[in-house]
């Protein structure tokens, strides 16, 4: 969920927001492990399954899930990257965004079970964009969604199949996921009462 992070970068100096640690490194590992197990359970050993990470932080998460699935059952699940920028419905509301890469695994997505992976599920608009992007890229047999944090406030009828942690939040709060691959640390924090 790109804009969950984008918003957090505009912290106003002078009003230090309250920061609450939701998941530490070990917690995050356990969450990823659990989701990996759930995927194996729900998908019958992750057969004909593709993991697609949504940039930025969904991408390393998808890779971690694939690595854990391989460690647990020795199944190699193809991992890809799906950039949804060009499908967003809020493009005109902000300055032009730079595009991320889109990189599908060699076998493509036709006839496979696609599991979208993102860090935070919020309004559901990113997932809506991802579903539109998918339908232009091929025809998966089914699409599922895995997220580390579901923070509520959905604006569209979308729900996740695999959720790491449900966190009740206020709209003004920001859920900040940091990952070792991108940010150097593994953490989920709730940054409260931010004034934009």
């Amino acid at each position, binding site marked *: 969920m790109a804009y969950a992070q984008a918003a957090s970068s505009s912290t106003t100096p002078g009003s230090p927001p309250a920061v609450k640690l939701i998941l530490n490194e070990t917690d995050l590992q356990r969450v990823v492990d659990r989701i990996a197990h759930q995927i194996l359970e729900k998908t019958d050993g992750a057969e004909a399954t593709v993991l697609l990470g949504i940039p930025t932080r969904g991408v390393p998460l998808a890779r971690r899930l694939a690595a854990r699935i391989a460690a647990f059952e020795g199944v190699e699940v193809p991992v890809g990257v799906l*950039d949804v920028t*060009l*499908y967003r419905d809020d*493009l*005109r*509301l*902000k*300055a*032009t*965004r*730079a*595009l*991320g*890469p*889109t990189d599908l695994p060699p076998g493509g997505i036709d006839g496979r079970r696609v599991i979208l992976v993102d860090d935070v599920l919020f309004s559901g608009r990113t997932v809506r964009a991802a579903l*539109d992007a998918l339908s*232009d*890229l*091929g025809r998966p047999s089914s699409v599922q969604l895995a997220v580390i944090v579901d923070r509520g406030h959905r604006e569209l009828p979308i729900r996740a199949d695999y959720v790491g942690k449900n966190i009740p939040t206020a709209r003004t709060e920001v859920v900040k996921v940091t990952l070792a691959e991108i940010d150097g640390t593994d953490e989920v924090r709730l940054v409260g009462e931010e004034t934009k």
Partner: protein
Amino acid sequence: MIKHLLSAADLDAEHATLVLDTAAELANLSSREVKKLPTLRGRTVVNLFYEDSTRTRISFEAAAKRLSADVINFSAKGSSVSKGESLKDTALTLQAMGADAVVVRHPASGAPHRLAQWVDGSVVNAGDGTHEHPTQALLDAYTMRSRLGRLAGLHVAIVGDVLHSRVARSNVLLLTTLGAKVTVVGPPTLIPVDVGPALSPDLRVSYDLDAVLPEVDVVMMLRVQRERMNDSYFPSTREYARRYGLDVARMRRLPEHAIVMHPGPMVRGMEITPEVADSARSTIVEQVTNGVSVRMAVLYLLLGGK
């Protein structure tokens, strides 16, 4: 991002690189099943062409359509322009129709700059007289980067009718911004006297093609623009071809990795021989393909955001 793209000098290194990177992502679209993105749905792009063009107009049209924008093609022939309508009145008409972007080609240098003052939407210069053609420079830079892996430190020779070439001017500006070294080569009559100081202090000038060829990574051949010439700038076509045309013998003087470019339309047998134009070193067809991606990137970056 900037609002209009009127000159290659409008782009600093950061923005120019953003255009090239965006184009690289958009290039994947052509290998997809559905070659269309919903990004500019509901936006209107007007192609305003006062001068003949095949590849540029088609390229902009394809780019806009692949981003789902509505495209209105306007060519001066068969429009009210032949009844005497001025550029300003045409601009106000487009304005009243709600054009979000106007892609303009005009025989008068500076016409897009005037247009930008009259319309609210973005203006993209698709070639104005002998002045500039920034999207051509962008697609040339994109082609060089994808073939040779980098732009900084490359040595590019631009050969031929530099005097009348908007492609040359835009390329010199963009390539020097991106850190390449540029030498313009041609007969003294076809190279502006003060071209170095006017465009870029690092620009080099040579009148001897054979001497320049062994040390360049890219050689870009320009068409001799007969339609803009009132005087004779060289004795004969044969003499021009012999001294400044790229034939197989001259191509052998190039380093192993060097590529041959031409913005098109080319005159085979004049500035380039068919053997060279169709050789593996030639990127002429690639340039056309890349043109669509680069123009998509420009339209996205100008119209995609707020």
